[in-house]
């Protein structure tokens, strides 16, 4: 029995080792690639401005009936990209990306641009908060609540998926 448990420890050890190897392979790739990206940036600044545009990821966001027309409703980019969203909606609302805390107020049928750098990886909820036009007071209250990051009708319409550099 003691022999068995020794062998068990050996198996657990091997699995742990394999996982560690995977981790290092992963992070090595990352390390290996980072300088390349930096080189690219240096080159483009010097000669080729078109490479800069490659790093800008542009998306057309159409919000109809409180839904994104994008299918699947996921915007996928990589860390380091510049995200550029051209947003157009069919009603007045506040467009909000969680954690990044980007928030813009949109009027119906008036396009707006939201642009920001993808700094940290993760999968972030994109929510809209319809703006009700009951009275001015009400609107103020609602906006205040949004800023407080809490109550008010929040409708999940999709995700911003920022992948770590592979």
């Amino acid at each position, binding site marked *: *029995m003691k022999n*068995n*448990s020794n*062998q*068990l420890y050996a*198996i*657990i050890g091997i*699995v*742990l080792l*394999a*996982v560690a190897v*995977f*981790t290092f392979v*992963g*992070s090595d790739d*990352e390390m290996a690639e980072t300088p390349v990206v930096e080189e690219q940036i240096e080159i483009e600044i010097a000669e080729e401005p078109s490479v800069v545009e490659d790093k800008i990821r542009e998306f057309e966001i159409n919000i109809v*009936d*409180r*839904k*994104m027309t994008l299918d*699947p*409703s*996921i915007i996928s980019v990589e860390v380091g990209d510049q995200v550029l969203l051209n947003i157009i909606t069919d009603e007045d609302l506040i467009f909000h990306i*969680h*954690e990044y805390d980007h928030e813009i107020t949109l009027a119906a049928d008036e396009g707006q641009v939201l642009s920001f750098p993808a*700094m*940290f*990886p*993760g*999968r*972030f*909820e994109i929510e809209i908060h319809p703006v009700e036009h009951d009275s001015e007071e009400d609107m103020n209250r609602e906006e205040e609540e949004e800023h*407080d*990051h*809490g*109550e*008010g*009708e*929040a*409708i*999940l*319409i*999709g995700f911003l*998926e920022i*992948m*770590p550099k592979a």
Partner: protein
Amino acid sequence: MKRLFFIIILIQILLIPNAYAHGFGSKIDLPIPGYLYWFGGGAAVIASFAIISLFVRSKAHDDSYRTYNLRNVGIVDALYRNKSLLNVFKVISVSLLILTILTGVLGSQFPVKNFAPTFVWVVWWGGFIWLHILFGDSWNFVNPWKNIFELIKFDEKPLRQYPDKLKSWPAFGFFLIFAWIELVYPTPAHPQFLGNIIFVYSIIVLAGMRVFGKDKWLDNCEPFTVFFNFVSSFSATRVTSDGKILLRPIASGLLDARYRFDQLCFLILILSVVSFDGLISTLFWYDVIGIDAFGGSGRYDVIYVNTAGIMVSFLAFFSIFYSFVAISRAITKTDITTLDLAQKFVPALLPISIVYHLAHYSAYFFLNGQLIIKLISDPFGFGWDIFGTSSYEIVRTIDFILLWNYQVAVIVIGHILSVYIAHRISLRVFKDSRKSIMSQAPILLLMVGYTILGLWLLSTSSV
């Protein structure tokens, strides 16, 4: 008067506040990439075969494992003898309970600005489990209701005899309600709701202990005592009744476990609840139930489906487990009944369910757990800064490559532990290595299936 008071609280609880539609805090996990999913699945299968091969020639049937009494270490012994440390923990736990109720009821009603939601859902429910894995049954020492009961010096003599035929079914029921609140109720993080419900539950526990006796109530009706007791059989330490603190191989407590039918059901409930927790947020689940994951009112849309889902998921896990045990019994042609065999094998399911829970919650815990640093300085959300930490900046950068590897690693380790324990149990039951291996074929298949399910849940797109 008393009745009126309760009715008011009950109405407050039942009025579902028309608030935010999603649960509490952000879950920013990226699904684990495909290559890791296959790697994890492959590792689980290979490890399973490796473990079988260990047992092919084994003849020994003893359940013994090496232990070491930690009280031989001077400092541990000194800490153990010094009751004041334990008393400090008890006072802290009672104060935290009171603070949670007060902040919930009186504080800011924005969940992220209130101490109660983060403390209950992230720190206590998400993080406390680690203490049990590392140090054994900590809840037993810090259970605030038990401590209040002892502090007030309530009469320990029960007023009524606990109906023993109820066994631990009340705890099962309470745990199901708790899981429903966590997974299905639309606003589980609403501070006032939390404050009220914890207050009402506190009265139930205190009354229960007074009427049926402290230990009877805790062991049979207090779901967290039962739950954490299960989890701590996983841990590397155990405090024995004669005051030893034994260091033992991790999960070996499961070899000593002898469970009744009600305990078997509780364990399957844990397994089904943690898996259902992963399932209900997947886009796959939304497809199955035919509800659009986007554009709706979140949890309000799925309240009935998921209420049914929790029950169905328990029944499904129970029947699948029971059928595989029945196959195992048929293969070995043993005289032991299927039910008896199921009760004997069920402890082996605990590691895979706990590790899934840990993998599933790790990023959530890391990210939202940091809120507590801010909240201890301003528990009511009134703008206080007691400890000077209320302006703490939350670290949002997660190393996903590390997180993914960690998630797959804990799942595979849990799988290995489960398979290993199931084999040790089967050797004890069948006392014959050939029969024991035969009995394990279906159980092994079941465990590989469960591990793949866990990995799949982590790798699929979810809401």
